[in-house]
C-alpha cells in the first residue's frame, strides 16, 4: 500500500517537473516579446516625450506585465534612492537582482546591460540608436527561443514521465 503511494507520488513529481520545464521554455519567447514592447515604449518616451529617465522607466513598467515590470520599477527606484547611484549602476543592480524571477537567460541580460551603459549619458539620437540595436538583438534571440520551444517542449513533457516511470521500476 505504502509502496503504491510512493510510486504514485514519484510519478506525479516527475510529470510536474517535466511540465514545469516545458512551461519555462514556453515563457521565454513570450517574455522576450514583452521586453521588446517595453523597449519600444521606452524609445517612444525618450524620442517623443522627452521624459526624464526614471519617470520613463516607471511608465514603461506600467505598460508591461509582471516579472519584467519589476525590473524597470526597481531600476527607477534605485535611481531615485538616497545612495545617489548613477543610472548605469542602478540599472545593473536592478537587472542582476531581479533577473532570477524571469525566464530569460544570460545573453538577454548582457544585451540589457550594454544598453544600460549607454542610456542617459548622451543625446536623444544616440540613445534611440542603442535601443534599436538592443531591439534587433532581442528579436534574434526571440526567434531562437521560439525554435527551442518547438523543439524541446514536447521532449521535456514526455521525458519527465518516462524518467519517473524508470525511477519507480528501479526502486520496486
Amino acid at each position, binding site marked *: 500500500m505504502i509502496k503504491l503511494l510512493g510510486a504514485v507520488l514519484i510519478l506525479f513529481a516527475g510529470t510536474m517537473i517535466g511540465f514545469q520545464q516545458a512551461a519555462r521554455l514556453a515563457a521565454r519567447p513570450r517574455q522576450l516579446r514583452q521586453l521588446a514592447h517595453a523597449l519600444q515604449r521606452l524609445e517612444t518616451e525618450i524620442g517623443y516625450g522627452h521624459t526624464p529617465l526614471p519617470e520613463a522607466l516607471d511608465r514603461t513598467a506600467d505598460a508591461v506585465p509582471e516579472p519584467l515590470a519589476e525590473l524597470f520599477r526597481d531600476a527607477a527606484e534605485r535611481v531615485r534612492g538616497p545612495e545617489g547611484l548613477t543610472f548605469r549602476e542602478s540599472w545593473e543592480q536592478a537587472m542582476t537582482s531581479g533577473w532570477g524571477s524571469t525566464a530569460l537567460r544570460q545573453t538577454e541580460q548582457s544585451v540589457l546591460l550594454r544598453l544600460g551603459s549607454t542610456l542617459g549619458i548622451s543625446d536623444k539620437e544616440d540613445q534611440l540608436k542603442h535601443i534599436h540595436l538592443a531591439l534587433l538583438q532581442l528579436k534574434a534571440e526571440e526567434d531562437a527561443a521560439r525554435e527551442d520551444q518547438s523543439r524541446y517542449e514536447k521532449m521535456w513533457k514526455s*521525458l519527465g514521465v518516462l524518467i519517473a516511470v524508470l525511477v519507480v521500476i528501479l526502486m520496486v
Partner: protein
Amino acid sequence: MNMDVSAIFQIAGIGIIIGMIHTVLKQMGKEDMAQWVTLIGFVVVLFMVIRLLNDLFQEIKTIFLFQ
C-alpha cells in the same frame, strides 16, 4: 521463484523505458545524450544480472562442493 519472475519483469520494464527515452532524445536531435542513456541503462541491467548470477553460482557451490 517468485523473486526471479519479478526481476525479469523489472529488467524488461527498464528496457522498454530506456528505449522510449532513447527514441525521444534522438527525435529531438540529442543523439549523444540518447547514447549515454542507453549505456547507463545497460550498465544498470548488467549489475542486476550479475547479482542474480552470483546467487546462481552460490547455489551451485553449495550443491556440488558440499559447503
